[in-house]
C-alpha cells in the first residue's frame, strides 16, 4: 500500500503527460498537470523553509557548536520573509511587483543577497586558478588533448590570440588562434557535445520509461 499508491500516481501523471503530447484533445490535461506540478513545486520551497527552521532552532536550543550562526540564519530568514510577504515599503502596496525597486525586499536582494551570491561565485575564479596550477596535469594523452584544447579556447577568446597570430597569411587563416578556437567550438566540440547529448537523452528516456513502468523505485526509499 505504501508503495502502490505513489507508483500509481507517478505512472498516471507521467503517462498523461506523454499522451498529451501525441493527442491534441488531451493537451489541456497535460497543461493542467504541469500547472499543478508548478504549485506543488512551491510547497517544496515551503518545505525547505520548514526544514531550515527546524534544523536551526534545534541547534540554537541545544546550544550546539556555532549556534550563534544559526541565530543569524534564522534572523535573515525571518527578515526576508516579513519584508517579502507583507511587501513592506513597496511603492504599489500589496498589488505591486514583489521586486519593485524601492521595496525593502528588493533592497535586501540588491544589497545583501546579490553581493553574497555573486561573491560566492567569484571565489571560483581563485579556485580555478589554483586548480590550474596544482591539478591540471598532462599526465596522459587524454589530459594533454584536453589541455591543448583549453589553451586554444582561452587564448582565442581574447585579444591576445589576435596579437599573437595575425601574421599567419589568409591562406592558412584557420591556424590563427581565434579562428582555431571558433573551429574547435564548431566542429570537434559540437561533435563531442552531440554524442554526449544523444547518450544522455537515451539515458533520460530510458530512466523515464523505467519510472513510468514502475521498474525504478528507489525514489520511494529502499530497494524493496
Amino acid at each position: 500500500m505504501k508503495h502502490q499508491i505513489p507508483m500509481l500516481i507517478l505512472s498516471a501523471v507521467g503517462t498523461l503527460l506523454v499522451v498529451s503530447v501525441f493527442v491534441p484533445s488531451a493537451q489541456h490535461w497535460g497543461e493542467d498537470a504541469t500547472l499543478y506540478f508548478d504549485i506543488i513545486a512551491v510547497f517544496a520551497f515551503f518545505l525547505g523553509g520548514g526544514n531550515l527552521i527546524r534544523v536551526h532552532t534545534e541547534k540554537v536550543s541545544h546550544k550546539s557548536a556555532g549556534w550563534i550562526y544559526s541565530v543569524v540564519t534564522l534572523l535573515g530568514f525571518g527578515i526576508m520573509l516579513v519584508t517579502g510577504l507583507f511587501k513592506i515599503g513597496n511603492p504599489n502596496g500589496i498589488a505591486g511587483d514583489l521586486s519593485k525597486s524601492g521595496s525593502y525586499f528588493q533592497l535586501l536582494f540588491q544589497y545583501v543577497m546579490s553581493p553574497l551570491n555573486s561573491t560566492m561565485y567569484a571565489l571560483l575564479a581563485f579556485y580555478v586558478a589554483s586548480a590550474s596550477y596544482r591539478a591540471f596535469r598532462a599526465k596522459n594523452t587524454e589530459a594533454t588533448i584536453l589541455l591543448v584544447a583549453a589553451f586554444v579556447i582561452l587564448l582565442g577568446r581574447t585579444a591576445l590570440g589576435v596579437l599573437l597570430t595575425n601574421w599567419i597569411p589568409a591562406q592558412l587563416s584557420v591556424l590563427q588562434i581565434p579562428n582555431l578556437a571558433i573551429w574547435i567550438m564548431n566542429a570537434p566540440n559540437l561533435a563531442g557535445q552531440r554524442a554526449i547529448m544523444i547518450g544522455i537523452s537515451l539515458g533520460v528516456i530510458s530512466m523515464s520509461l523505467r519510472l513510468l513502468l514502475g521498474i525504478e523505485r528507489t525514489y520511494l526509499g529502499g530497494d524493496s
Partner: protein
Amino acid sequence: MGLIISIIVIGGGLLWILYLSIKGRDVDRRIVYLFVGTTVALAIIFRLEFGEVATPIVKSVFDKIENLPAGSKIVLSYDFDPAMAPEVNPMANAFIRHILEKKHRLYFMSLWATGQSLLSVSLDSVLKPEFPDAKYGVDYCNLGFKAGNEGVLNVVITNLRKMFPSDANGNSLDSLPMFKDVESLKDMDLLISIGGGKPGVKEWVLFAGDPGKVAMAGGSAAVSTPLLYPYWPKQLIGLLGGTKGAAEYEAELIKRYPRFKDKSMPALRMMGPQTMAHVVIIAFIVIGNIAYFRSRKKGEQS
C-alpha cells in the same frame, strides 16, 4: 602606461612562481589567489581595453533582431541570478536597447525569481531612462516569475494565460494592448532566453523553441555555452556566450547605432581584465606542468 606596469608586475610575479616551482618549493595557494586578484585589479584600474568584432554566431542574433519588421513580438527571459549577472546582464541590457530601438514589442519574463529582481534593476537603469517614450503594456511588459522551471514553458507554449493570468503588477493580460494577438508563445516572433543554469537556454529550446517551432536565440553564461553549440544554427538561430559574446554584441550595437557609444557597455570593459587573467591561468598551467614533468623525471632517475 598602465599596460606596461601591469606587464611588469604580472611577468615578474609569474617568473618568481616559476622559479619557486622549478626549485620544487610549494607555492601556497593563497599566493596564487593573491596573484590572480592583483592581476584582475590592475587591469580594471588601468582600464585596459581591446577591440571586438562579432563572430557569426553572435552576428546572426543581431541580424535577426535588426531585420524583423517593427512591432515584432520578442520575449526576453531573465533566467539567471546575481552570480551570473556580470556575464549575462550586459547581454540583457544590449538586447533591451536594440529591441526597443527597433520598435519591437518586448515581453519580459523569468524562470528564476532572482531574474525578476535583476530585471527590476535593468528596467530602472536602462529601459526607463534611455527609452522614456516606451509605454508599459504597449511597447513592453513584465510577466514576472513563475515557479516550476520547464513546467512553466510546457504550459505557456500552448497557452500563455493559463500560467500568467496577470503580469507582475497584477494587471490582467487582456487589459494590456500588446497581448491582444497573443495566445501563446507560438505567436511570438523571437524568443530570447538569457541564462546559465537550469532552467536556462537548453530548457527553452527543449520546451518552447522546438515544440512551438518559434525562432529562438540565447545568451548564456560561459559555463554552459559549449553545450549549446549543437543547437546552433537550427534550433537556436544564434548564441551569445559569456562576456565575450556580450562584448561582441555591444560592439556590433555601437557600430550600427553610434548613439549608444557613451552608454555604459560593461562587457567591452571587462574584456581587458579577462585577457590578462587568461594569460595568467595559461601561465599557471604551463608552470605547473613544467614542475610536474621535472619532478617526474627526477623520480625516474632516482
